[in-house]
């Protein structure tokens, strides 16, 4: 039933029901399940909710998915290399507040403010990666610690409340009625598309990306195959932190001002997008899948809210959905196979 069985025991991959096997094979190459879910959900929306097909709704979904998808980009990279990043929310908030404060309150130039935000991302990601690799501390705890440290420092820096206002041009980037070079597509969606293509290419077509998979799938084998596992691991965490910081910068435009808690919802949502997309811990998946995961979650969110369901009910359905999806494609090995 699961592709996991093929990993646990390579020789049984051909067994079972042929049709199921073929479907599994397809699912491995193409995120069929997720595509179907997305199409079904969208069609369901079209048929039950008036105005669901309008451009306004579509763009709302896309803007929402863009931000979620970008937040999930770093998480995808870290999960692929075999780690987990619980500091994404903090980096989003940090990027957000830094831009708003430096530009809005201290009147820095945008370039300088962005540079500072990115530098914070690099340093924070470095700390995440080095501590978890060098000292073999669980990434979960390290990233929680870095998360607390960073958000604490940001909080202190602005003395508890963000006063800054984001530069106006940032707001235009994330407006659902925004235009890109005169074309009627919200700029943030275009940015997401570009980032998705770049990350997708890096993951599948560059040595850095390949090393990420090799390390995530089988660290001892990667080491034996002369991959510099330590660098790969650390760069993955830096990439994650920097991407999260960028999301924070974009969110400053979305919300118009700095907000120290703006990243919080993304702590678990970024992970949910990755998991729904079908990227699993240790080298299975890619960024395209996370893109789909973000789209599915955004459509679900809009459907549920359009159906007058509370955000609470949305959460419950989302949680159950993730569980079902994961249950279909990937679970742990049996205990008896490990003796």
């Amino acid at each position, binding site marked *: 039933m699961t592709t996991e069985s093929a990993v646990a025991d390579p020789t049984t991959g051909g067994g079972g029901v042929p049709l199921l096997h073929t479907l599994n094979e397809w699912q491995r190459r193409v995120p069929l399940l997720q595509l179907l879910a997305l199409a079904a959900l969208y069609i369901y929306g079209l048929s039950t909710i008036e105005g669901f097909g309008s451009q306004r709704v579509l763009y709302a979904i896309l803007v929402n998915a863009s931000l979620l998808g970008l937040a999930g980009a770093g998480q995808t990279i870290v999960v692929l290399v075999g780690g*987990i990043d*619980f500091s994404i929310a903090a980096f989003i908030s940090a990027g957000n507040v830094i831009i708003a404060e430096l530009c809005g309150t201290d009147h820095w130039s945008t370039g300088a403010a962005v540079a500072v935000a990115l530098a914070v991302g690099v340093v924070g990601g470095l*700390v995440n990666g080095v*501590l978890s690799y060098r*000292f*073999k*501390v*669980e990434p*979960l*705890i*390290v990233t*929680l*610690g*870095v*998360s*607390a*440290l*960073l*958000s*604490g*420092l940001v*909080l*202190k820096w602005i*003395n*508890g409340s963000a006063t800054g206002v984001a530069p106006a041009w940032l707001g235009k980037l994330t407006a659902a009625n925004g235009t890109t070079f005169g074309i009627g597509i919200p700029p943030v969606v275009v940015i997401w598309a570009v980032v998705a293509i770049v990350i997708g290419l890096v993951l599948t077509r560059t040595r850095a990306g390949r090393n990420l998979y090799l390390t995530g799938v089988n660290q001892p084998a990667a080491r034996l195959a002369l991959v510099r596992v330590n660098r790969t691991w650390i760069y993955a965490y830096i990439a994650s932190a920097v991407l999260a910081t960028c999301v924070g910068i974009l969110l400053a435009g979305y919300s118009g001002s700095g907000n120290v808690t703006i990243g*919080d919802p993304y*702590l*678990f949502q970024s*992970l*949910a997008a990755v*998991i729904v997309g079908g990227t699993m*811990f240790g080298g299975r998946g890619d960024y395209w899948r996370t893109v789909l995961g973000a789209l599915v979650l955004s459509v679900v969110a809009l459907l549920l809210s359009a159906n007058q369901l*509370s*955000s*609470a*009910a*949305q*959460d*419950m*359905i*989302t*949680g*159950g959905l*993730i*569980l079902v999806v*994961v*249950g279909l494609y990937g*679970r*742990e*090995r*049996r*205990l*008896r196979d*490990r*003796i």
Partner: protein
Amino acid sequence: MNALDFLRGLLGKRPYAFAGLLALLLLVVNTALQPAFLAFGNWAAVLASFAPLAVAAMASTPAILSGGGGIDISIGPLLTLIDIVIVANLLPNGLTSPFVVIPVCLAIGAAIGAVNGALVAVLRFQPVVATLCANIVIGGLATQVQGDTVPSGSTSWTKDLAGSFGPVPGALLTIGAPLLIWWALSRTPFVKALYAVGGDDATAFSAGVNVPKVRIAAYSLGGLYAGIAGIALMSLISEGAASMSAQYTLLAIAAVALGGTSLAGGRGSLLGSLLGAAGIYLINNLLNVVRVSTLWSTAIYGAMLLFAVVVGAVLTNARRRAVA
């Protein structure tokens, strides 16, 4: 150097010693700066404000001890759900007796914990994934039950829990209950089985230990403790607190790690988590006392957590190398 070696030895044998020493030091500093802190009359209030975090940390411990990547990140939402169920459902409907409220809360907690345990031990979901979903679902449920306006309410015994029953601080009951349950369980083979499964599940399995049963019991116990934490939180704030769930999840896990419990499973203790929580609580309090803005507290506890886990890793890695 001798002092360092001694410290290494101590931490090697008693991983919670670091959190213990830290908590003790902070307690002394707190008391020196603010003598009233330890005044007898102040105990009840101090303990009551400490209780939710303390019990949440203990609630996170059994899942982590059970190994296999075990962790329960749904503890935060679960305890806020319990809190909300009391204020929004039970009290307004006249169900105020502790003999109704407490069993209901504990049963909800244990049942949700058992579901998490079954997802992990029977259906073989990764613990992070399973409890993340539980986190989202329970969080949603909590917001749902809470409704649009934050409900509030209290009854005499919950006030006493936040205050005192006669001379006894009420929070001693909420903090003491998990310890007492743990003590009672350690009179059965369960606690030892839990450590064995967490330490090496393949060995435990080959020796005939019922590994899934132990793991399900561990997650259920965590859920039960989360029920107690929810009662402690409710009696402290007397209102719904759906927004506080993420904070408790993360602080509780941090307290467990600070308390010397290994996220790899099989090493650590409930006492360590309690001491770790005390460390975090006392730091917050200290920063309050010396009027360093509370804004520092998050950053400082983050730094402390990183420091503690790195020190712990260096010490245990050195020790394991020496053994091997």
